[in-house]
């Protein structure tokens, strides 16, 4: 782009991100849809499973299930929000907004960044709302390592919104996205250590969970909430969680930019 970094990249990225936020908060059903179901899941599944299965796995020593399930629920909120905000790419395309964006004198990368950043902001806010509820899960906010928790939450939100964008960019219907969500995104969450710890899983599943980048996001929040002393010696370490999540975020962003830079061509 011959135009400056500001006019050709930062300004369009920022304006698209702020549009994303405005739209989200204007549609109240979306706000509720992203926050309420995970909270209900947490409470119902947490209460039900907690009473039925008392066997305490190594990673969750001394915790009740509601406590164990809490970090995974935050990740679920972030995942839902990321999904809903990237589905809007499909709406933008179908409703026509996107046509005026792709013909504007801005780099395609700024379109991807704006969209992803907007989704990240929304996901981060929603996640934060739930973090404030942490005392319900036996975590005192006073002892919470805020910087680590929010830093990680940001990186994870960014990675998941990027993933959603990369999936949604080429799709022409929201239905298609839903099947990807059920086939790919939900299992990714199930197998992230949100619902059950890796230690008790059979070997093959352990392999899948180790390869799942979201496992490191859930573990990171677990470290943040329940302290490094409990996490001592537990795989993965806080540092590993950070690097894997960051790598995941960079990868999905790079993928989004690469996909979105391609223009429709004549055959």
């Amino acid at each position, binding site marked *: 782009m*011959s135009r400056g970094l500001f006019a050709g990249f930062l300004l*369009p990225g920022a304006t698209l991100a702020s*549009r994303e936020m405005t*739209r989200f908060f204007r549609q109240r059903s979306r706000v509720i849809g992203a926050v309420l179901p995970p909270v209900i899941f947490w409470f119902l599944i947490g209460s039900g499973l907690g009473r039925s299965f008392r066997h305490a796995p190594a990673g969750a020593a001394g915790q009740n299930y509601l406590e164990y399930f809490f970090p995974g629920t935050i990740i679920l909120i972030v995942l839902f929000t990321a999904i809903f905000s990237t589905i809007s790419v499909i709406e933008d395309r179908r409703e026509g907004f996107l*046509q005026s964006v792709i*013909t504007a004198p801005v780099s395609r990368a700024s379109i991807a960044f704006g969209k992803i950043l907007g989704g990240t902001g929304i996901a981060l806010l929603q996640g934060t709302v739930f973090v404030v509820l942490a005392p319900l899960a036996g975590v005192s906010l006073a002892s919470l390592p805020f910087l680590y928790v929010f830093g990680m939450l940001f990186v994870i939100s960014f990675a998941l919104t990027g993933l959603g964008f990369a999936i949604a960019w080429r799709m022409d219907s929201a239905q298609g996205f839903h099947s990807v969500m059920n086939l790919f995104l939900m299992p990714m969450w199930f197998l992230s250590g949100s619902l059950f710890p890796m230690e008790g899983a059979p070997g093959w599943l352990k392999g899948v969970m180790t390869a799942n980048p979201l496992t490191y996001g859930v573990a990171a929040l677990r470290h943040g909430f329940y302290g490094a002393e409990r996490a001592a010696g537990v795989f993965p370490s806080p540092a590993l969680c950070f690097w894997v999540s960051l790598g995941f975020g960079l990868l999905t962003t790079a993928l989004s930019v690469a996909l979105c830079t391609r223009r*429709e*061509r004549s*055959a």
Partner: protein
Amino acid sequence: MSPEKAAVEERPSAAAGRALALEVEAVSFAYPGRRSAERVPALDGVSFNVGKGEVFGLLGPNGGGKTTLFKVLSTASLPSSGRALVFGRDLIADPAGARRDIGIVFQSPSLDRKLTVKENLTHQGRLYGWTGRRLEARIGELLSRTGLSSRASDLVETLSGGLQRRAEIAKGMLHVPKLLLMDEPTTGLDPGARRDFWTYVAELKREGMTILLTTHLMEEAERCDRLAILSRGKVVAGGTPAELKEEIGGDVITVLARDPAAFSAAARKRFGLEALVLDGTVRIEREKGHEFIPDLVGTFPGEILSVTVGKPTLEDVFVRRTGHRFWGEEK
């Protein structure tokens, strides 16, 4: 190449000798098909020029290639070959440079319905690098020009179709483009809004704006300074509406005959003229049609059910250049 194409190029254009706003040269585009044999070219060597300050119309039936051409000109799609220069800058090779000079009004709305009119314009301005007071002032100016000032903070989805189209035009005009591209701008508008639209176009033209619009409506094409008629991906005719109709010369006689094919053959033999059968009617171009009709009816008594004579329309031009009806092309 076809004789039509040669004719288009020979015709001295009204734009000759003036600065050109848009030069389209041999643009081709094909949508991907499963096999290369199945690929139908949506654009096949399209060439035309638009002079500075002109209102130029791309007329053609739906499926004729207008929308594909519009996508190429708006830099949304890359053609397989050809050039398109906007004020001398190739929008295919250097889209970023050309984009600042082009304002685009899409056929399907590009406004975000969940945002207000003003929010839409603000985001649009920022995409073009405008900020602060300059943007604020420009938005105010456009809102008052399009009569939307009082609706500025209403959500777009609460606006009527006509007002949405106005907001759409304000959006396309925001960054002060030199060339305004509009795809079927009056689609879905009621007659009142349509009139408003053409008043606004005339106003923009007076201010020196160059406008290219696509349409499938003959009466709208009539209002353009110059036209290119697009059919099956090719420019089949070009010129001012008057020039195009002149080439037919005289009148167009439409005959409803008992047996159109037999009548057409007999008339051709008897009078040595072209008699084209179209949708069960026979179409004859002839000077002084009213003088010819008594001859025609007298020669074929009982064969003719009805005869009408009229001045050529742009539809007649289309029929002559393509051999089929404007609206019947899909069949």
